[in-house]
């Protein structure tokens, strides 16, 4: 099946006859993803200002060990040596991070924006060698389905945090029901994360896509239809949920630092 391709001009890096602004989208994605990774890494190492009243930042949830009242098992345990940088976020953040890292949408996006493979459609690449996801290391991306299950567990935990964010300390002791702007921020975040996770390609495959006749499995049939509907907007939810999770952290951080005031709506 030998093929001699048409050679038009040089075919080196960035060679193309395209005259539109093909570099804008990959550049915007590069800036967007780098900013998020930069901010979240910084925030994860802070180990401070991640909780405010009943709110817990999603970067730090679940808080397994830590200094806030949200911690499951109290403060940092003795077996973690002092020289190891510690923050509750560092224990849990790798899971959602790897979930996104192995997501089909993000893969396609960062292969283009960060690895220039290709920089944009019909634009020349910097390297000639290519193995894609056919062999090691990128064949490891197929681990995505396991991170998806972990992400589902995180969704449940974050939903529980929204429930907790409805209970504010009462003036005379105890707790009282309430809704603050922070509660809404956390709730919207969970909704967007759910739309992102439940529309995951793996979810779509597992709930019904693997059947050729999904109509013969009534529960799967419904689930497949829902997952497919969300999947069509997967890119949108990938970005919206990335933004909302970052914003939820910023909101709680700035409230905790006293820069923003959390309005009580109820």
């Amino acid at each position, binding site marked *: 099946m030998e093929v001699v391709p048409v050679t038009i001009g040089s075919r080196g890096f960035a060679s193309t006859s395209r005259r539109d602004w093909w570099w804008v989208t990959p550049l915007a994605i590069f800036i967007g993803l780098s900013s998020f990774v930069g901010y979240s890494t910084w925030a994860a190492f802070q180990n401070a200002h991640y909780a405010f009243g009943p709110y817990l930042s999603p970067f730090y949830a679940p808080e397994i060990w830590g200094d806030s009242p949200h911690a499951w098992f109290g403060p940092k345990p003795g077996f973690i040596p002092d020289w190891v940088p510690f923050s509750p976020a560092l224990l849990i953040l790798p899971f959602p991070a790897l979930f996104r890292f192995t997501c089909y949408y993000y893969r396609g996006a960062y292969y283009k924006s960060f690895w220039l493979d290709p920089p944009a459609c019909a634009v020349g690449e910097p390297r000639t060698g290519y193995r894609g996801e056919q062999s090691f290391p990128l064949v490891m991306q197929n681990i995505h389905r396991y991170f998806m299950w972990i992400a589902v567990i995180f969704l449940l935990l974050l939903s529980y945090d929204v429930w907790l964010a409805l209970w504010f300390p009462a003036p005379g002791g105890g707790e009282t029901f309430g809704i603050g702007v922070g509660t809404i921020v956390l709730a919207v975040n969970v909704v967007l994360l759910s739309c992102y996770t439940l529309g995951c390609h793996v979810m779509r495959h597992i709930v019904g896509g693997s059947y*050729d006749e999904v109509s013969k499995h009534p529960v799967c049939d419904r689930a497949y239809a829902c997952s497919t509907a969300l999947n069509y907007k997967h890119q949108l939810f990938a970005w919206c949920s990335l933004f909302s999770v970052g914003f939820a952290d910023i909101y709680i951080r700035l409230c905790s630092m006293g820069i923003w005031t959390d309005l009580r709506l109820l």
Partner: protein
Amino acid sequence: METQATFKIWRTHPGGDGTFQTFKTTVTEGMVVLDVVHKIQAEQAPDLAVRWNCKAGKCGSCSAEINGNPRLMCMTRMNELDTWEQITVEPMRTFPPIKDLVTDVSWNFRVKKGIKKFKPRPADQPDGTWRVAQRDVDRVQEFRKCIECFLCQDVCHVLREHNKHDEFIGPRFLVYAANLEMNPIDSDDRIPDLKEQHGIGYCNITKCCTKVCPEHIHITDNAIIPLKERVVSRYYDPVTRILRMFK
């Protein structure tokens, strides 16, 4: 209303290489790029080779690269293009040139022969027919819209940049394989071939194929990724492998 336009059209030389030739012409309202190419052919370059058939976006013959974007010439309206600038028209880069805008796409037909054919399960009814739910058919119906223009093959960087024609069948044939593999009455198994001979792992889901498809088939999301997931379940996921052992 008539407008002046400058077209740079790729012309091959007898040796096999080629250069752009510039043509100035007038375009009128409602024209598509294929009309302009035909006008140039009629008035200025009778030996200009261009392949076309339906002029309705249905035969998939007139694929080319217009201003660097893989498109059907008959479906690219002149009013979408900026006539202040020169408009380039080149053949598809991924296939060997024959003459001018015509390329040899026969590799695709050879690839197609290598994909296991449709093999229906035994008939459901005594009269030799099958019963299938409409929505199960709808899923593969999308893939049947393909007009084999091969624009997706042209833009796919695995073929275009890395020339993996021997190891990767390309998006068009992943759509074709998906059409058969997800067909409710097909009984053959193409998953081992997809992983090995068809090289589905080479696709890095960058979606250029989806962007250029004139039939708006969700090539990456509906054909390639679901097939990749089937390959993962079969070969890479230890849990589904264990579950299968108990089935």
